[in-house]
């Protein structure tokens, strides 16, 4: 698609901007063009975030409602579309309480700072052909670096609340992010090694040039990144940090009013962004085989983004929550070694490719090999750890006779002690 098409050509939303900037440059006002382009980028991201958050609240509630055979919000506006607006108005009217013994400044700052990683990440996401605010050449590194601000902010919120539930939630967040940042980075490393670039635009171009999606080539990093990103943004089954049934609301227990609203909105926006990154890293970004000739690239990207988001909502509506030690164990014991093995494998394949100076079609056998190895690795590793069948549920005994003891449970390692209460 021609980026330098006419400014009214909305197949790329960047065209009007480029038209304006080109006109400014023709006049010789380069500095103004620079400022204008930055302002437009910031405004676009702000607009996108605002609209996306309002829309996502509605999407999330409706989808969850469908899963739970309810109707969901359907009273305010057509199909309940204005419900998020009503919610926002309600939240703004509510009093924002600050704990008397809390750290007031940090307490105030945390929800505001929480926006920083979200907004900055959006800056490098290519929303369509040529529609990136700043296509950094270290884009992947930037995303990872910016994303690691999140646990700090969460800890600020948890600590300053002076609430035990908040503190527990913050502690859990730190442990989770420390453990899951690593597999996420390792899985992205495979992508970077394969595509040979950290620039998000280049990653998409690689997939376009070789007529493939990375997910076909890198099934294991895809799975690892899916799990790790779920854990990092704290969505179910990894909503351990704000586990409602255990620690009320985790780190944002004490927040009320619009400050709570910010936490809620950022959580949704993060899920959406992760959906977008999925599209970029594994599903060709805005490029979709031959569809992007007919359909505007940004539409394709949004569709993929929403599909990724929908996956998260689906998970939220389906699975129970893991315990913190189980999830950490899963990361260190399973995801990290698997990811490392895969990096070695991909590096070897890429070296072979360059060495042979082979045409791009060599990716096809690589894809087959990777899928087979992934299946083999998972099965083999599970066997190695003897994870199989340990959890097989035993069936109940159904009896007609009562007054008998059918089975005496073996005393368990943890938990109950008949002597009355020394910890196991």
């Amino acid at each position, binding site marked *: 698609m021609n980026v330098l098409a006419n400014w009214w050509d909305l197949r790329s939303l960047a065209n009007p901007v480029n038209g304006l900037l080109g006109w400014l440059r023709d006049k010789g006002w380069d500095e103004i063009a620079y400022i204008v382009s930055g302002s437009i980028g910031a405004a676009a991201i702000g607009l996108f975030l605002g609209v996306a958050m309002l829309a996502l609240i509605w999407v999330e509630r409706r989808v*969850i409602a469908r*899963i*739970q*055979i*309810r109707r969901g919000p359907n009273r305010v506006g057509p199909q309940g579309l204005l419900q998020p607006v009503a919610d926002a108005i309600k939240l703004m009217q509510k009093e924002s309480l600050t704990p008397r013994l809390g750290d007031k400044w940090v307490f105030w700052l945390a929800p505001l700072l929480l926006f920083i990683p979200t907004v900055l990440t959006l800056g490098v996401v290519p929303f369509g052909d040529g529609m990136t605010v700043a296509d950094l050449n270290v884009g992947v590194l930037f995303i990872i670096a910016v994303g690691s601000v999140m646990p700090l902010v969460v800890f600020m919120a948890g600590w300053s609340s002076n609430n*035990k*539930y908040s503190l*527990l939630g913050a502690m859990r967040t730190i442990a989770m992010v420390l453990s899951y940042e690593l597999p996420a980075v390792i899985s992205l490393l495979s992508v970077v090694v394969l595509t040979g670039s950290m620039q998000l635009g280049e990653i998409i171009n690689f997939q376009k040039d070789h007529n493939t999606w990375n997910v076909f080539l890198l099934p294991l990093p895809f799975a690892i990144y899916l799990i790790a990103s779920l854990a990092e943004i704290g969505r*179910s*089954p990894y*909503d*351990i940090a704000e*586990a*409602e*049934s*255990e*620690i*009320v609301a985790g780190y944002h227990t004490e927040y009320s009013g619009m400050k709570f609203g910010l936490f809620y909105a950022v959580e949704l926006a993060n899920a959406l962004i992760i959906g977008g990154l999925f599209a970029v890293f594994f599903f060709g970004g805005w490029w979709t085989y031959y569809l992007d000739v007919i359909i505007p690239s940004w539409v394709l990207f949004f569709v993929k983004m929403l599909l990724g988001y929908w996956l998260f909502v689906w998970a*939220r*509506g*389906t*699975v*129970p*929550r*893991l*315990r*913190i*030690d*189980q999830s950490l164990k899963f990361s260190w014991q399973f995801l990290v070694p698997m990811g490392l093995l895969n990096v070695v494998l991909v590096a070897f394949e890429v070296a072979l490719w360059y060495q042979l100076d082979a045409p791009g079609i060599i990716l096809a056998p690589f894809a087959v090999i990777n899928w087979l190895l992934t299946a083999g690795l998972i099965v083999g590793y599970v066997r190695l750890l003897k994870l199989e069948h340990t*959890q097989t*549920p*035993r*069936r*109940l*005994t*159904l*009896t*007609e*006779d*009562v*007054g*008998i*003891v*059918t*089975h*005496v*449970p*073996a*005393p*368990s*390692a*943890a*938990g*109950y*002690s*008949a002597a*009355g*209460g*020394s*910890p196991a």
Partner: protein
Amino acid sequence: MTNFSTEPYVVNIGPQHPSTHGVFRMKVTLDGERITDAEMVVGYLHRSMEKLAEERTYTQNIPFTDRADYLSSMSNNLAYCLTAEKLAGIAVPERGEHIRVIMAELQRLANHCMAVGTFINDAGAWQTPLMWLFAEREKILDLFEMTCGARLTLNYMRIGGVSFDLPDEFVPACRRFIDQFPGRLDEVEQMLLENEILLARSKGIGVIPTVAAINASLTGPMLRASGVAWDIRKADPYSIYDRFAFRVPVGENGDSYDRFLVRLAEMRESVKIVDQALRALPGGPHKVDVPLSIRPPVGEAYARVEAPKGELGFYLVSDGGTSPWRFHMRPPSLINLSLLREMVIGLTIADAIVSFGSVDIVIGELDR
């Protein structure tokens, strides 16, 4: 870091907490996330039910029982009416007995829907199984509403029978319900029974050994999950339960997961009982005429039923007057919860919540 000094961390779980199912308070001492000590505090919903009952007539006391375990008022009604009938020597007509059994078993379904749903909710499945089971519970409540007009605090049973006869549309509606209910149960089992996360969260968590369960006088699903085949419907049949064929599910491990399994299996058995009772439903009067104010002979009586949560018993002492001299309840919620401290010590907060959720309590009955 060996000289790193730490101090215990006391957290109040409740009385206002999303998973204490009301106003129960668990004061836990934490070492990190692990519970080293726990103290249970009950009584936030105490309404002095037993003392109040001494001022009212035997019939006027029936509504109190609704408000004890408000999620299974039919069973409470039944237990109380059985006791009063035993005290006064009143026999219930056949149709009345059948209606009572149908209602009590429907109530068991409704209660277990709630118990299983909230248990899974405590384990972190964000409300989906709860909502699925709530939809089924709604249908049962519709059946109750059709019969006696109320949905939650039913006040349906009377000394000597039940207050109203079944309406004409009840039997087909109830038949429709029990025909489709096992299918719904299949869906829930499909989603949860072998769910790896649920297994990891509830297998081996909150184990109660058989001996401890018997010593603590646990009853109902809690006892059965610990491997004791004990069901008052079979062991000491009341009403007309000896006429129905059903089996008692017994667990093996005594953990939270087994309690969940036992409840699911009990629901299937209850459906069978309702089915048999509907087939055998005779005509005739639904109650005998008992004056609103009865004067039972001097004496005492204890009758018990297998309520959804366990053995629910009422102990009534009559001094020959119109109101009981002593009115006492054996609440299964309270007694089943008595092992909670031993269950949760050594577990993490997350596991403690799951163990607590698997007990299935109602605070109204706990505190009375």
